[in-house]
């Protein structure tokens, strides 16, 4: 029997297409089911009110606010450190053993399971530094978790700035720092923003790192300082799904929808920003 290249081509195409479709289907299903089941719960009161009746009615405002505080805290901590580290790695570090160890550490940091970050945050911030279970501890823990994302994205953005620009700047008598400040950083900003927003999405969605460091089971008021506990969306979702009996399905799915929307909107923002800058890119 001779092989028919036309038929094998068709078979190959079929399986490749099938595999691709298999990726898209679950994403679509998740979004559709959560919207379908959660949308009836969404109204102004649900988003802006305190939870009532043992979280069985009322709103989820403290959890939304808590998640926003935690994410902001994580970014305030991780963005400067991440960008400075990325500048060092991209512009100053020489290719030697120490640099390789640092790069390896960053890659590994990205692969650490999030619950391990939670335990680490508990040991270091809550217990050792005596910050207690607080916004500060939770933000720092989330910040460490998103550091590798920010460092990697920023480093790649800086390394994609052509070497010739640096050479031109230095040949005009600029110092290395002036070159970074005026040439490298301005052209790396879109990449840095994209990395940061991806980090925000990750930090907003994680439960394990905040479990031991900040998240409150039930706290129907807003925090007064960074040493207070807060509710947070992912943990709240876990609580009303497994710990509190008789919570209406639409409230659970409504909470999931709000969380999903927050993460998707930040990711969308990253895509829009990248697209805008790419169109403006001048080389």
């Amino acid at each position, binding site marked *: 029997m001779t092989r028919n290249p036309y038929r094998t081509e068709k078979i190959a195409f079929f399986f490749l297409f099938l595999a691709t479709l298999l990726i898209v289907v679950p994403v679509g299903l998740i979004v559709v089911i959560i919207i379908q089941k959660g949308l009836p719960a969404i109204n102004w009161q649900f988003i802006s009110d305190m939870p009532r009746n043992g979280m069985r009615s009322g709103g989820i405002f403290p959890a939304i606010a808590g998640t926003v505080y935690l994410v902001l805290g994580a970014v305030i901590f991780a963005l400067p450190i991440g960008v400075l580290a990325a500048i060092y790695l991209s512009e100053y570090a020489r290719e030697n053993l120490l640099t390789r160890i640092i790069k390896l550490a960053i890659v590994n940091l990205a692969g650490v399971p999030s619950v391990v970050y939670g335990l680490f945050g508990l040991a270091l911030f809550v217990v050792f530094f005596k910050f207690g279970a607080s916004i500060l501890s939770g933000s720092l823990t989330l910040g460490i978790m998103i550091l590798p994302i920010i460092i990697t994205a920023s480093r790649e953005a800086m390394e994609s700035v052509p070497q010739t620009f*640096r050479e*031109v700047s230095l*040949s005009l008598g600029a110092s290395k720092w002036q070159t970074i400040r005026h040439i490298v950083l301005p052209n790396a900003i879109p990449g840095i923003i994209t990395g940061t927003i991806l980090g925000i999405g990750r930090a907003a969605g994680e439960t394990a790192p905040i479990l031991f460091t900040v998240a409150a089971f039930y706290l129907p008021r807003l925090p007064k300082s960074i040493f207070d506990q807060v509710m947070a969306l992912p943990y709240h979702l876990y609580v009303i799904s497994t710990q509190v009996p008789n919570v209406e399905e639409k409230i659970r799915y409504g909470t999931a929808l709000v969380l999903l929307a927050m993460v998707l909107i930040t990711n969308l923002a990253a895509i829009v920003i990248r697209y805008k800058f790419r169109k403006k890119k001048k080389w």
Partner: protein
Amino acid sequence: MVKNNPIKFSIKNLNAWFGSLHVLKAINLEIYANEILSIIGPANSGKSTFLRTLNRLNELYPGFKMTGSVFYGGEDIQKIEAEVLRKRVGTVFALPLPLPLSIADNVAYGAKIHGIKDKKKLEEITEESLKKAFLWEEVKDRLNESAFKLSGGQQQRLCIARTLAVKPEVILFDEPCSGLDPISTAKVEETMFVLKREYTIVLVTNNVKQAARVGDKTAFFLSGELIEFDITEKIFTAPSDQRTDGYIRGEFG
């Protein structure tokens, strides 16, 4: 013998390596003020490396090593801060390399780096530099456009203007016309002629005719060695080394 201008660069027994590759071998050479020195030679003969040694640009590459000394105005360049040296000794690269800025900001970049903040002053420097590079008339109405919108020849003259704006004393041209058409090349050469009244120029070129047209002195490099150095007319009419003769007549390249 023609009367020589004052010495700008004095190179003594310069050797350079990239890793284990010996790229410059025992170079001794003097570069005189307000002259154009053309450096010719086939590819990989060490011309560009030599040029980049003069303002310490080679140091940016890992594995670069040199021995011997280069004196600039009597001072060892290794003792001058790299930023100060590069401000005085500017470079125009082989390909037009505008920075991702507007036309005006490209020219003003160096001046800003060196601490000039006054807007009026920056505008003056920009205009003056663009005029010296014979580009002003072509761009004066579009100074805020991206420099990447200019043609290749215009971009190269923009790069010359950018180098002039930091007010250097020496300009190093590293095959500045290798990517340009004949008309743009003629404009760049014309610019160099005018510039040598105020500046010292070192021109690396793989175009022998260009060296003959613009150079006061010519140096011939081959495999990292300086084979011959003399006034241009002498090199092109009665070279003392057979290899020089062979190269300028196009027997190898």
